[in-house]
């Protein structure tokens, strides 16, 4: 399998003030399903536009199937774009919308008719050929938009925020449909989202972005379990964060001095952290409310102050001696408010992060407290 897309040190400025992409680099394998995830304004749409070729960049390069895209216009790139609001051509019926790419490639009408029929079947819109876009529901419009993009069989299919305009129930179904469709077609899909749930559940490769830079690339599990920066830890899932500094380090295992006392945790990088300020994080679902027989690397006594019901899990809110709140997610069980319990977690679940974010000029304290 080759590389479908290579982005190399990409820099994009809007005017002289706004830096939208700051030396962004990453590779995408042929046939991968990539989700670029980040808050709105982080540069993910800009990145997509640069890959599409509708936006020029300032420095760096993009390679599609190992060919440099410098100066290559959008219509010569082997990509198809599905923009956020579907952008169906309002003056064309569904058939002509889907046929557009093939007509631009001057394929024969008989061939086009067959392919449009197949594409509409794939997205479950058989018999919709004669409809106008204005007569379709939001979900149907989106599926027409997908059919229009996949029909040209692009090397890379780019989908900008494809789930942000459909309702919650449909989102789940669309995520499944996307993955099935991608598996069936076998080409490379790259989509963006600002909703962490979408990224975590859909992506084969997840790219987390913030403020014009890539924070981390990996599988959902890698990123959830071993976030490299505080930004990633907070953006992907929920996390309890505590300030601290490293007392001793043995490869990846660190002992950290924090306001909760000495804690042990794991550092995913290989820098020497001795005596350095770090952030210590632990996911709410990794903390256990201990029974007598249990043994954990880290134990803390804390008072239960409240809880929130989430269906299968309950989020308990504990307060430790130093007035630090700890969130714990666990199966419903009977605990009393105001009573003190012992909480425990293992070293592998203590995430040690030495960088607040890959973006420059962000202090670790800033990102833990506030914002």
């Amino acid at each position, binding site marked *: 399998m080759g590389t479908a897309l290579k982005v190399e040190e990409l820099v994009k400025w809007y005017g002289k003030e706004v830096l939208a992409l700051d030396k962004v680099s990453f590779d995408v394998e042929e046939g991968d399903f990539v989700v670029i995830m980040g808050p709105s304004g982080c540069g993910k749409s800009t990145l997509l536009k640069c890959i599409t070729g*509708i936006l020029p960049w300032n420095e760096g390069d993009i390679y599609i199937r190992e060919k440099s895209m410098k100066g290559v216009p959008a219509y010569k790139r082997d990509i198809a774009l599905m923009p956020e609001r579907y952008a169906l051509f309002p*003056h064309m019926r569904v058939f002509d919308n889907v046929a557009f790419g093939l007509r631009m490639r001057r394929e024969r009408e008989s061939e086009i008719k067959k392919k449009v029929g197949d594409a509409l079947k794939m997205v479950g819109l058989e018999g919709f050929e004669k409809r106008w876009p204005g007569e379709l529901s939001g979900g149907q419009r989106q599926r027409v938009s997908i059919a*229009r*993009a996949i029909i040209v069989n692009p090397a890379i299919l780019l989908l900008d925020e494809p789930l942000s305009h459909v309702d919650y129930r449909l989102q789940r179904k669309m995520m499944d449909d996307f993955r099935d469709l991608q598996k069936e077609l076998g080409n490379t899909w790259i989509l963006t989202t600002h909703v962490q749930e979408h990224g975590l559940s859909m992506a084969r490769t997840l790219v987390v972005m913030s403020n014009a830079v890539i924070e981390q690339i990996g599988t959902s599990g890698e990123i959830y379990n071993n976030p490299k920066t505080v930004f990633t830890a907070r953006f992907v899932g929920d996390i309890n964060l505590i300030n601290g500094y490293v007392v001793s380090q043995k490869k990846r295992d660190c002992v950290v001095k924090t306001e909760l006392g000495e804690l042990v945790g794991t550092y995913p990088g290989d820098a020497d952290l001795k005596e350095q300020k770090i952030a210590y994080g632990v996911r709410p679902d990794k903390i256990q409310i201990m029974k007598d027989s249990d043994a954990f690397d880290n134990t803390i006594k804390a008072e239960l102050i409240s809880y929130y019901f989430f269906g299968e899990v309950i989020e308990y809110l504990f307060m430790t001696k130093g007035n630090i709140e700890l969130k714990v997610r666990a199966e419903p069980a009977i605990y009393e408010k105001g009573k003190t319990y012992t909480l425990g977690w293992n070293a592998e679940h203590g995430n040690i992060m030495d960088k607040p974010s890959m973006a420059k000029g962000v202090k670790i304290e800033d990102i833990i407290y506030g914002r």
Partner: protein
Amino acid sequence: MPQKTSLKGFLSRNSVYLMILPPLVIAVLFMLAPTVSVLLLSFNKGAGVTFDPTRLTFENFFAILTRPTTYIVLRDTLGMSLLATFMTFMVAFPVSYFLAFKVENFRLQNVITFLLVIPYWVDWSIRSISWLSILGREGIVNYLLLSLGLTQTPIAELLFTRWTLLIIWIQTNVLFMLFPIYLALSRVDPELLDVAQSLGATPSRSFYHVTFKLALPGVIVGFMFVFVSTIGDYVTPSLWAGGLQMLGKTVQSYAWLFQWPIASAYGVLLLAVTMAIIYVLLRVVNIKKVFYE
């Protein structure tokens, strides 16, 4: 159950009809009635201005349709009007395109639109008279030609030709073409062009298949405005076109001679030609799509 017969009841039951009554009266009185009277008069014998149902005839139409001059006038009228409309489109489209796509600042868009409207504050006759100082014997164009040595004597033919008429028609009508096109273009989502290009459309093909096609209803509306207002115009051709005979002028000259039935027949001919062309235009493009979604 006894029917309510009070005035209040009657008013409230028929409020919708009562509300459209005043504009209906005005429309019938000022638009429909004159048209119908012209239509009736064109089938009347003699020279009177009142319709006499006992003297119905096709004589007037027979008379005008057997004259060779009618066809020459019709050809010139249609030719000039269509040419003027097309030229107006050629001027208005790039300007509307520029306004809709290249001027990103919304306030600047408004300022430019405002500047474009200012000349329309003065009457069209004054606006067209200003061409005297440009195209006249001592006008700017002649001055430039003389001082550049391109001509020894001032060119008189700049004024009072069919080309003068064309220029003045373009100038007096350009906004009626520009605004509908601008309206249609400003509703075109730029994302559509991104998608078109990502699907393999070159800039020129995405312009034709997306931008122009979406602007087409606006073009048709502008086309109708300009075409209708030029084809029936008799004042501008009388003033500026030299000896060029136009259908509107013919109608006017027969009316001047109190030949009402013949004038009416020419009027009906003009109306028929105009309606035929507009019918064809509307068959080409669905005008409702100007306001799609």
